[in-house]
């Protein structure tokens, strides 16, 4: 049996966020349970990274060069990977995107 994928979770600075970033991340984690593990440790090498950004600008996505060698799924305020999402669906949509990019 292959090991569950590891997702590193990173947060933007949260200067003027449209969402509660901490709460959103906490909602994503249980949705991944059993299939993926998560870490907030920036030094662990992971299979995927989840950016949790407070607004559409998503400054983590703009990092150049990117600090994330692995594929990135990004919550950008009320969007996931640029697609608008209702607030109540954010965590679910992000979790689905993480699972799909692991297949």
């Amino acid at each position, binding site marked *: 049996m292959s090991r569950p994928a590891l997702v590193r979770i990173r947060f933007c600075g949260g200067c*003027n*966020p*449209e969402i*509660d970033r901490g709460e959103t991340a906490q909602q994503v984690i249980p949705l991944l349970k059993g299939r993926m593990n998560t870490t907030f440790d920036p030094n662990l090498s992971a299979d995927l990274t989840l950016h949790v950004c407070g*607004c*559409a*600008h*998503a400054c983590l*996505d*703009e990092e150049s060069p990117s600090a994330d060698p692995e594929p990135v799924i990004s919550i*950008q305020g009320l969007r996931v990977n*640029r*697609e*608008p999402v209702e607030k109540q669906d954010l965590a679910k949509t992000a979790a689905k995107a993480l699972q799909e990019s692991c297949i």
Partner: protein
Amino acid sequence: MALMTGQAYIESLRELELEVYFMGQKITRVTEEPMFQPHIHTAAMTYELANDPEYREIMTATSNLTGETVNRFTHIHQSIDDLVKKVRMMRLLGQKTGTCFQRCVGLDALNAIYVTTFDMDRDRGTDYHEKFKNFLAHVQSKDLMSAGAMTDPRGDRSLRPSKQNSPDAYLHIKERTNEGIIVSGAKAHITGAINSHEIVVLPTRAMGADDADYAVSFAVPVNTEGVKYIFSRQTNDTRRLDSPLDSGNPKYAIVGGEAVIVFKDVFVPWERVFMAGEHEYAGQIVETFAGYHRSNYGGCKVGLADVVIGASDWVADAHGVGRASHIVDKLTEMISMAETCWSCALACSYEGAKTPSGAYNINPMLANVTKLNITRMVYEWMRIAQDIAGGKIITLPSEMDLTQPELREVLNECFRGREGVDVDDIFKMLRLIENMSVGAGLPEAMHGAGSPAAQKIMIARRSGIEQKRALAETIARIRPDKYFEKIVGLPETDYWKNVAARIAEQHHG
């Protein structure tokens, strides 16, 4: 096709035959009409600078459609860098012309339609985005100037389009055929309309289902049958007919040269229609356009501020008061206000974001703040320019009197400044300040890109006020503060109990 030069642009207008009216006259040759020439020169600057290696980085971009180099005024922003270069271009052109260079409305309309049609096609299965890309490729390859026509006359502002007494209060679809749509109505205040190649139309407000016929976006060549133009008047505009000196900025004029565009049963083929009834997207296209447009004002008006600050310093120096402490203070105040607006323009660009279409959008909150600052600060820095320049800006006799030898002598005496400054130059500079600070430029800063209330609505909507309340509640000890608990190593309630006990002990023990 290569990028057009300023002269090639003017040549390209000669072959367009438009139906234009100004002061009761029908104008047959737009490019030859002295009233229009300064506005045409200004638009020509947007072409000319694109050919200068010194400005090419800012004035041109690589098309995402063709990979060709295009004038940035026809470009869809592909990165944060593009958004930043866009506002740099605005400031540059304000500096070079001292007025509105007309093309940003069209640029913003192109970008707003690009972003919105992508979403419409994705959600509704329409094919507007592909059609729009074809149109855009045409604009880019021919290096065309597009006027952005959003503002409808709007009649009773409190009523929706479908509830107005006259259907023409808003431009609307009268008929749909297999070949296209037939539209009627008008668009008011349209900058650069008479010297553009294309009119790009978009709706002016969010719409309901009853307003579907008003939710319309399309592009037509300026000389389309059924389209006519009534050119606006401005303060002191006809001075340019009798005296270059008196007109203040005889090369480039003031504001952009606006016109009412009347559409009477105009046929638009489907390949040029980008929205026809999808009322749910009217709000999105308007907001996207308005955001782009409001961000520009922290570029162009700051370019104008650079000119008027320079002019104010020049006049103070010519009058021998250049080093007076209150003058230095006032100039510094002008610079500080201008750079505040510039900071806003840069910030809303740097904080921009990629849209699902791939195009980049500015940060809407910061763009609205930019424009709201402009509605106040332009008045403030122009007020200081008037203070420094003196009452002469509105009491100078005309150039006609200056050319009479016997009057000239006494006028020279009246208006000369410190030794070594040519009095003719003083006249020119005072007239420039009059032109920029007294006339049409001020209400443009107020209403162009929307009146202040429109910005405040957008700012309030994005204010995140709930989150700010939560911040205050946390600090005021109404909400739990998990970081405070970590810092003090106790649950907050226990910590405050301990504090209360300590205080009681101090008081009683």
